[in-house]
């Protein structure tokens, strides 16, 4: 391809009219407790993987709920399933279960 010396950026906007929310609805349907997240970041703060890599559990599951699946599976693969996040979540969310569920649902993305 000819290199014209410029590129077009992909829009960063989350467009809820375009995003296919089917998977997201399935995930919330199976574990409605995920909707109880208050975005406190305790999970990310205590996360073993998050302290060593860019992995941010809170952000990834929030994006998944908005129908942004790109890269979510790969991100969740960084999780070591240590379960520390579950110990700290003030909303009592089975966070490790969420990791497993998202991986199961988005394996083909």
């Amino acid at each position, binding site marked *: 391809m000819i290199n014209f010396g410029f590129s077009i950026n992909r829009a*960063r*906007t*989350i*467009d*809820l*009219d375009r995003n296919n929310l089917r998977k997201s609805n399935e995930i*919330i349907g199976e574990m*409605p*407790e995920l*909707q*109880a*997240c*208050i*975005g406190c970041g305790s999970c990310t703060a205590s996360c073993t993987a998050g302290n060593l890599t860019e992995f941010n559990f*809170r*952000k990834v599951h*929030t*994006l998944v*709920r*908005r129908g*942004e699946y790109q890269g979510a599976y790969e991100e969740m693969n960084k999780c070591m399933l240590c379960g520390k996040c579950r110990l700290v979540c003030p*909303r009592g969310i089975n966070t490790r279960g969420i990791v497993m569920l998202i991986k199961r649902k988005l394996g083909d993305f």
Partner: protein
Amino acid sequence: MKHVIVIGGGVAGMQCASELLRQNIAVTIVEKQQCIGGKIRNWHKLFPSFTPADEVLAAMQQKLTTHNNLTIRTGCEATCITPQKVTLSSGEELRCDATVIATGFTLFDATVKEEYGYGIYDNVITSAELEQMFNEKNVHLKQGGEPKRIAILHCVGSRDEKVCQRHCSKVCCVTGVKQAIELKKMFPTADVFNFYMDMRMFGPGYEEMYREAQTSHNIHFVRGRISEVSPTFNNRLQIKAEDTLTGRPLKMGVDMLVLLVGMKANAHNTTLAKDCNLTLQPSGFMQPKDSFLGNVASNVEGVFYAGAITAPKNIGESINEGTAAARGVVEWLEKR
């Protein structure tokens, strides 16, 4: 017999009047509107218990109907208020031994926030209008039909330097959660999104109701303020915000946008401050004598406050202040 004038017949004023009557004090309620009850006359069901507002109102009115020492002057607006005299806009002067100001608050006028399109686009409504629609059992789109996607925006006319309202209106977060649940019950297949800045669930049972909204009703909460609303070709509303928890801009089409309008100080408060030597807070609400020991007293001896006149409050707090103000009045009358 001593005579006290209560200005404003909302829940705070009604409670104060009934407590004073119990103490054998004659009371005159001066109310601007054609009937007493205040703002809650327009509300449908009350947070957090979903009790019909009518029930609360009827119980309070019941306490007042049995008294002969009560005069209710509706359709009368008080202009100047001193401990011994209340002047009405008609020029008439009423004499008394003490006064209680319970004139409440004013709803923020959503047309001021033009970017949200209230009064410009169909289907942008305020939380107060939604209560009205619930009461009339008539929630629908302007063009007819049911909404499939609804957004509820918090902090409209509150915490906003641009409209000179720095304070938090306190009850709109919980009202937004309550209305989201009611809408979801009415339209189970619709998606409801609350756009919030902070969730301020200050009262007993409120946080629990928030959680219930999230997990039992699948209401979506997005942290971010809607920046603008525009119409789409198919008569929907396009909204834009930042999903601050993911750090990404977000947009979507909705059928209905509910603006949680704030509680603003009455414009009349400024006149009260000037003409009656009462002090104002920077927010425009009246300044109580002391934040701890004198919540229902004013800086003028013999003039008391009750309810949302001093700050945004819920109904329970306003009613309690009605009782406290009556107690303050009795103590003051005894001293003299």
